[in-house]
């Protein structure tokens, strides 16, 4: 199994009383709540944490994109990935993901990713996402065209990376007379593409397609949903496309906290993880799922199953019970991942080891303990330990 550390770079210094005045930490939260001096401290601290993980032998370090919010301060993950590219030597640098389709000109991102890939000698992983619903408010992109633009932006970028230029691209949303990327990516034919999602069946079907076979990465969700969507990928590959998906195509992303004992882990993580879910991830349904962002079928699904991790008040106990986070002693965490791997067979694991307001010292302790006590036992897991597709997946 490949183990990645994942960072959201939250604005941990947020005055949490904001919640009395504003309905979300996104879109409508005034940016006067952001103090650039504290932002400077936080960015550098967070980059240190990712660099530490690279030194400790994580297979990869991972960043992502969110706009106009306190939950994650990376409107451009290209900036953080660039900062990391010269400070690390072996770890994969994974941008999970970039929302190419939010841009009027996705080629600028294609160029930047190719640059990072060249600078790092082929250590880049490119995640392609649509961006969450709130992004469609913040950047004024039309959610009703999100799926179609996502697919077309992907086609444009892959062609730009692989087809000799100059050529013209004639799409429905993107039109370019001169596509001729300098530089071309280091990895051939192009950097691995991953599809992170909170569980859109359309995205899973798209990622599993035999022409792509992209890694599907399930963002943190209750265990039930993780199982449902990861199994759906495998079922979709089998039933719709007639091939057996490799476990290397399956990934799971989850917050993790390790301490000496279960009790201590719970106690230390509690305030910080609850801030992540109850304050930073505070997003009303209307912002999370703007009209047209989900297909009619997915919208109904989302309503009836309440798959979403936001929109409910969480405690650390509900988070642990639902499997949204993994928290405990090294032994507990190791056993839980090993058991979940046996059932779901993901060969890629993304661990969010800093979350919410988790301070520097606890974050560092968490990263070190995970790297020493948990990671080695997981890195040796292979497809052999996977029990195979057991349960009925999502329809």
């Amino acid at each position, binding site marked *: 199994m490949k183990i990645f550390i994942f960072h959201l770079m939250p604005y941990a210094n947020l005055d949490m009383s904001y919640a009395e005045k504003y309905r979300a930490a996104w879109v409508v939260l005034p940016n006067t709540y952001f103090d650039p001096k504290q932002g400077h401290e936080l960015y550098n601290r967070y980059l240190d944490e990712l660099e530490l993980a690279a030194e400790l032998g994580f297979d990869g370090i991972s960043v992502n994109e969110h706009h106009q919010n306190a939950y994650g301060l990376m409107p451009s993950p290209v900036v953080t990935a660039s900062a990391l590219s010269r400070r690390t030597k072996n770890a994969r640098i994974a941008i999970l993901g970039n929302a190419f389709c939010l841009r009027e000109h996705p080629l600028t991102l294609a160029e930047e990713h190719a640059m990072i890939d060249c600078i790092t000698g082929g250590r880049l992983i490119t995640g392609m996402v649509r961006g969450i619903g709130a992004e469609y408010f913040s950047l004024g992109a*039309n959610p*009703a065209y999100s799926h179609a633009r996502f697919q077309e932006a992907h086609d444009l970028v892959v062609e730009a990376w692989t087809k000799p230029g100059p050529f013209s691209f004639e799409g429905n949303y993107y039109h370019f007379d001169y596509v001729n990327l300098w530089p071309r990516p280091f990895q051939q034919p192009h950097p691995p593409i991953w599809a992170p999602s909170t569980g859109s069946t359309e995205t899973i079907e798209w990622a599993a397609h035999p022409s792509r076979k992209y890694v599907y990465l399930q963002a943190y969700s209750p265990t039930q949903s993780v199982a449902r969507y990861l199994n759906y990928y495998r079922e979709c590959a089998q039933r719709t496309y007639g091939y057996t998906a490799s476990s290397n195509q399956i990934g799971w992303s989850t917050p993790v906290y390790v301490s000496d004992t279960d009790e201590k882990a719970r106690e230390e993580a509690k305030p910080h993880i609850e801030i992540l879910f109850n304050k930073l991830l505070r997003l*009303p349904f*209307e912002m999370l799922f703007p*009209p*047209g962002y989900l297909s009619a079928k997915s919208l109904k699904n989302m309503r009836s199953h309440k798959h979403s991790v936001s929109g409910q008040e969480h405690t650390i106990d509900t988070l642990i019970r639902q499997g949204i986070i993994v928290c405990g002693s090294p032994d507990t965490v190791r056993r839980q991942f090993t058991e979940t791997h046996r059932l779901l067979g993901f060969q890629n694991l993304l661990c969010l080891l800093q979350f919410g307001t988790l301070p520097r010292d606890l974050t560092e302790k968490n990263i070190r303990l995970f790297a020493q006590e948990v990671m080695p036992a997981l890195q040796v897991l292979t497809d052999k330990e996977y029990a195979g597709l057991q349960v009925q997946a999502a329809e």
Partner: protein
Amino acid sequence: MLGAEWPAKTRQREKPLQHSEIDVRGCKINVRRGGKGEPLLFLHGAQGLNGHEPGLEALTADFDVIAPDHPGFGKSDLTSAVEDVGDLALFYLDLLEAMELRCVHVVGQCIGGWLALEIAIRNTERIKSLILVNSAGIRVKGVPRVDMFVCSEDDLLKFLFAAKGGTEWLQSWRASPDMEDIYDRNRAAAARYSWAPRLCNPKLDRWLHRIDVPTHIVWGNEERIIPREYATALKDGIAGATLATISECAHMPHIEQPRAFAGEITKFIRSAAR
């Protein structure tokens, strides 16, 4: 303003609207139609139609009321040919042709008003008059608007209705699973056509001079989604346009003040549009 004392004789002439399906170049459109008189095309807004629009029934007393679901709304097909309100305008010129409608009074509310404007700047050959009700379409810079997409459902009802009629209206969408699906479908279609720039075509005001039919503007005076300044700007932009406001009314005059809504339209058509 015509209010509660709506003449009984007029009321007797009102007819329920009947559904039919018409085909516009392969796209099936659900049309409600009822009443006798000159044809009146009602172009609905972002909220769509669900049969609980007493203002439309009131108009059937004097007009042949034709109220289609726009492509992607209600029970009409979605067509990839129509991606924005400009496309929608050309689609409706095809629809007028397909239905062989001439001398039509076009009434548009919200994005339906925007659509009426986009049709009229392109071609008014088949249009006799234009009535813009709480109309989207233009952009008046510096006037704050509330956003019907980002707000909660509770706030949405407050923005749509001045009084508490919104709860009943929302209930009518919850009447059956089918209606609930159409409610979601309408929101998605509204986003498709009006998300960005929100509820407007920033270039539209450059072409308002092309509107050469009598135009009346009707506005709920408690409107916040498209504030009153928009009504004034439209009046200033369209030669000869007149403006009337409806009190105790926000974004949905055809539902909240059906008598005043129908009264304003009828009065205007009887005088200016003759």
